[in-house]
């Protein structure tokens, strides 16, 4: 009788291991997000735990409490770094004071005799460049997406889509290089701006990196509008442009909104393009033809030269944390909109 051995459920070791291993590996993505949170914030933390430069030990204490044993090593390393500086002696190193007032000031002079860590010009810089980029990229990308999915003849579509994929594949350093060498000169010749490298040049260059993102997601959103909807409109005698403008586009709005949000996120976090094309002067102005220094470019330019563990280093990590939180929030909101659109799609609404 074979039936009795149905009961002897075998313990499949390899099956069990495979499943656990796969789940554990999948968990890694989640763990990395947590680790990014922890390790980027942790290097920014000393700013908040010490308002006086002399109380570095206090900051160390704080860390020990928060992170347990592994922080002990970190602490000793911090001490070692301080020790080394003291021994070096020859250069009088001034520990910066990163009080809230200093952080909220309008001067970013991290390596002067009295370091100033005012984040405002950097934040304004990032916002300014991102705004220029998205104002240029979003209309172009959304219109092009509308064109591809509603009006374009098949032949044009077959050129347009690969062209955008090519643009998406441009390394940002290549766009930065193009902006630095060609675009900057072109813009200066055209408008006679005082500075070759400025917020406008950076924004234009950045829009090249933002266009593919907005285009892809907007196109996706437009293509996801149920055919029944557009067909209903056409059957009522509406022309294809009326359908596109008054039916398709409104129906795709949440997806397009998400596309713009993700575009802003990309613009805000992009480093190489702005590092190479904006002139990197931390000016607190709202003039688009002034040079500008963004948050990401500041990290990119200065991190390689700071002393590990000092205030400047911590402030750069603080800027990174702000970037992370900002893009994280944008992504979460965008995802909410995309999901809602998908849900509606599945409900057939």
């Amino acid at each position, binding site marked *: 009788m074979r039936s009795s051995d149905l009961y002897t459920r075998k313990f499949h070791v*390899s099956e069990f291991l495979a499943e656990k*291993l*796969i*789940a554990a*590996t*999948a*968990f*890694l*993505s*989640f763990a990395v*997000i947590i680790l*990014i949170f922890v*390790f*980027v914030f942790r290097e920014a933390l000393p700013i908040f735990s010490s308002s006086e430069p002399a109380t570095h030990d206090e900051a160390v204490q704080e860390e020990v409490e928060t992170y347990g044993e*592994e922080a002990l*090593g970190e602490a000793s390393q911090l001490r070692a770094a301080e020790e080394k500086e003291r021994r070096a002696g020859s250069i009088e190193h001034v520990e910066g004071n990163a009080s809230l007032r200093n952080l909220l000031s309008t001067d970013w002079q991290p390596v002067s005799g009295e370091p100033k860590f005012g984040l405002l010009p950097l934040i304004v810089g990032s916002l300014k460049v991102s705004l220029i980029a998205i104002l240029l990229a979003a209309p*172009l*990308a959304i*219109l*092009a997406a*509308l064109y591809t999915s509603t*009006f*374009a003849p098949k032949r*044009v579509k077959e*050129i*347009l889509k690969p*062209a*955008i994929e090519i*643009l998406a*594949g*441009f*390394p*940002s*350093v290549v*766009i930065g*290089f193009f902006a630095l*060498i*060609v675009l900057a000169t072109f813009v200066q010749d055209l408008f006679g701006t005082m500075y070759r490298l400025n917020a406008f040049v950076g924004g234009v260059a950045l829009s*090249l990196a933002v266009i593919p993102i907005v285009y892809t997601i907007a196109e996706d959103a437009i293509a996801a509008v149920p055919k029944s909807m557009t067909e209903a409109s056409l059957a009522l005698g509406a022309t294809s*442009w*009326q359908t596109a403008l008054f039916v398709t586009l409104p129906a795709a709005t949440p997806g397009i909104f998400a596309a713009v949000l*993700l575009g802003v996120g990309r613009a*805000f*976090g*992009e*480093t*190489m393009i702005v590092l*190479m094309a904006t002139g990197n002067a931390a000016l607190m102005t709202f003039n688009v033809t002034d040079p500008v220094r963004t948050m*990401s470019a500041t*990290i*990119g330019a200065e*991190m390689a030269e700071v002393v*590990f563990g000092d205030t400047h280093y911590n402030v750069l990590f603080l800027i*990174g944390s702000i*970037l*992370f939180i900002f*893009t*994280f929030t944008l*992504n*979460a909101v965008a995802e909410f909109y995309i999901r809602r659109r998908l849900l509606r799609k599945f409900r057939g609404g």
Partner: protein
Amino acid sequence: MRNAPWLGTLTVVGSGAAALTIILLVVVVMANILIGGWDTLSWEFLSAAPTEGMTAGGVFPAIVGTFLRVILMSIVGVPIGAITAIYLSEYASQRSIFARFIRFAVNTLAGVPAIVFGLFGLGFFIQFVGGGMDRAFGDGVELRWAQPNLLWASLTMALMTLPVVIVSVEEAMRNVPRELREASLALGASRWQTVYKVVLPNSITGLLTGGVLAVSRGAGEVAPILFTGAAYFLPHLPNSLSDQFMELGYHIYVMSTQSPDVEATMGIQYATTLVLLLLTFSLNFAAVYLRYRMRKRAIA
């Protein structure tokens, strides 16, 4: 206004013009770099090291560095990405909270700025892991692992390109018909046997596409390696994981922004940019081709 003919014309012409503008932009950038770099590009340029304080010679070490980095990155990132995709597509129930967390994490990861990955590489890999390794194995004086190097740069890059791999492989797996899984399970194959013998062989193209896209993205991204391993100039090629390395994108950045005489090296800058562009292009074309084949097969 809703039936004004001018509005119709404006819509069609306007959106067409937008599309045309984008194509033109792509063409202009490509043409500029192609023309600017063509004359300098030569076999010697590809195979020689920079000479005379980087004002002459080639970019061989930077090419080697880029290759080493993307290879290391793929060795780590592609398997992790593929396994995560297997989990999401084959193991996780669509309603499980755990799977939703992971999906959210993957989407978030895709949106984290490259420079933040760089900070993470510095804070986690170099300071925390590297520092720990030095304390455990080192002599306490010399820094070996707690400094920027090839390994940490590659690992940072691997994490950054993880979503690219996951999304691509998962798409390929979802294209494998459910009927094939059912056939296998109904024959008494276990879940893992089904994945290994039926699902994976039928999503190899997706795996390749994911790998190629990740490599392409990784090869072009400079921000995360600015302070996790790239070097301005090195007299010799890296020969261990704890060495720094030269790199094409970083090379372009420093040559065009930090060299004393930018004009003198313009040809080299353009040619280096062209090399990087050609490299990422050929990779992207390969990915587009693979994906096209995959989708065609999924429809058939």
